[in-house]
Each structure stands twice: as structure tokens, then as C-alpha cells.
């Protein structure tokens, strides 16, 4: 029982010491909003993701289109070759 009381007393004492620290880290309460024209530098939109996004989009789209057209061409060419061979075989037969 005495140990329990001692533990509660220590925890209470620590809490009382910590609470002013916690109060110090909290932001100051705002009483009014002040408008500014420019965002502070740490708040501004970074340019790098937009730049990288633009270049990545261009390169991906160009590569995608190139692959798409190449696949269409090879599919059509193989069909033409197959049909040509069929026609020649039918002509001989």
C-alpha cells in the first residue's frame, strides 16, 4: 500500500513537471488572421516534381505511342505475309 502511494506520488510529481513543457511546445493561440501576398519559402509549391512530371509524361507518351505503332505494323505485316502465301498456294492448287 505504501509502495502504491509512493508510485502515485512520483507519477503525479512527474506529470506536474512535464505539463509546463507540453504547454511550451504548443503553438500560440491565434486571435486574428493576418493576410499576406506571398507564401513563405518553406510553404511554396516545389518546382521539381512538376518539372520531372512534365518530362516523364512526355517521354512515356512518346515511347508508348512508338510501341503501339510498331506492334500495329508488325501485326499487319504478318497478316499480309500469311494471306499472300495463302493466295499463292490457292493459285497453284
Amino acid at each position, binding site marked *: 500500500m505504501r509502495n502504491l502511494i509512493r508510485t502515485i506520488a512520483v507519477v503525479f510529481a512527474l506529470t506536474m513537471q512535464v505539463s509546463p513543457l507540453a504547454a511550451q511546445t504548443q503553438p500560440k493561440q491565434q486571435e486574428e488572421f493576418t493576410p499576406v501576398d506571398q507564401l513563405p519559402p518553406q510553404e511554396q509549391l516545389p518546382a521539381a516534381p512538376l518539372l520531372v512530371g*512534365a518530362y516523364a509524361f512526355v517521354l512515356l507518351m512518346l515511347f508508348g505511342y512508338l510501341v503501339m505503332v510498331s506492334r500495329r505494323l508488325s501485326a499487319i505485316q504478318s497478316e499480309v505475309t500469311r494471306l499472300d502465301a495463302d493466295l499463292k498456294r490457292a493459285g497453284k492448287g
Partner: protein
Amino acid sequence: MPKWFQPATLLCGAMFAISPFVIANAPYESTMGLVQKVFYYHMPSAWLFLTASVVCGIASARFLATGNPRHDRTALAAAEMAVLFGLLTLVTGPLWARKAWGTWWVWDARITSSLVGWMIAWAYLILRQYGGPGSEKLAAGLALFGMANVPFIYVSVNYWRTIHPATTVVPKLPFSMGFPLLFCLAAFYLLMFLLMKLRTRVAEQQARLDAIYLSLDEQA
């Protein structure tokens, strides 16, 4: 494909691989900073979009005048180029504008007329795909409107109030910015030429395939 196609493709690939290093060495613009470097891909895309629209219009006019299917195939390939490079222009522009202007989009004359031109190119392709027999002539008429829109897009920034940079920006570029732009422009034009060749080849082979199927039908 012709013999020069493969070396030209390798050259184009090398130019695109080198282009990020050329762009990285270009100086920063004083007011826009890093994001201004979108310009080196945005402007070539925009020029190719306009060039493709003009090529599509001229080829369509020649097709309407002569009826030669070769011009029709060129127009079809150019319309696809206009859609592709128009998309690149309309996506890279807002990515640049978000940082430089604080907004993704403004309905000014340049951007709105570019969007209209891009939709005309889409309309051409949709008409070709779903319009049925005879749609190639209707689409060719539409391509003429797409071509007529091009000068309007180009000069719009000089006549209407806009925050889009004026056409005087490019001739006034210092060499350190002009060289990367010319390098990217050359790479993009070479790419467009190769893609046009490839796409025209697809259309030629498709025509050959259709002719074979027709002769098979006649034999049956």
C-alpha cells in the same frame, strides 16, 4: 522500311537521351526559376502540334483535289501526330503554369484555341474510325479547319491580353537558352518525321491488306 530508318532512329534516341543533360546545363530563368525548364519540351511539342495540323491540312487539300490515297494516308498520320503532340503540349503547359502562374489553366486565347485545334484533330480521327465509307473526304474537310486555326493559335498571344509569354521570347533567347531549345526542337522534329514514316507505313500495309481481302472475296 528504308535503310536510313534504323540509323535515324538511333540518332533520335541518342538525342533524346542527351537532351536532359543539355537542358540541365541551361541557365535558370530569373522570375520562374527551375520550372521554366519545362519550356524545352513544351515548346517543341507545341510547334510539332502546329506543324502536324498544317501537314494534315495540306495533305487533306491535296487528297480532296487529286483523290490520291497517298495524300490521305499522310493526312491520317499527321492527324495522329497532332493529337499526340497536342496532348503533350496541353499537359506540360499546365504543369509549368501551376508553379509559374499559380493556376493549372486559364481560358486565354492561346490555350483555348490550342484546345480547339486539338479537339479538331481528335474529331478527324474519330470521324475516320467510325464515319463509315466516304468519311475520309468529310475528315479532310475538317482538317482544313484545323489548319486554318494554326495561325490564330500562333499570333493570339500578341493580340489578346494574356499571361502566356509572347512570340518575341524565342528570337530574343540568349545562346545559353537558345541552343538547348534548338537541340530539343531538332530531336522532336526528327522523331515526328520517323513516327510519320512508321504510321504511313501502317496505313500502306492496311490498304494492301484490304486489297488482298477484296481479291479473296472476288475469288470466292
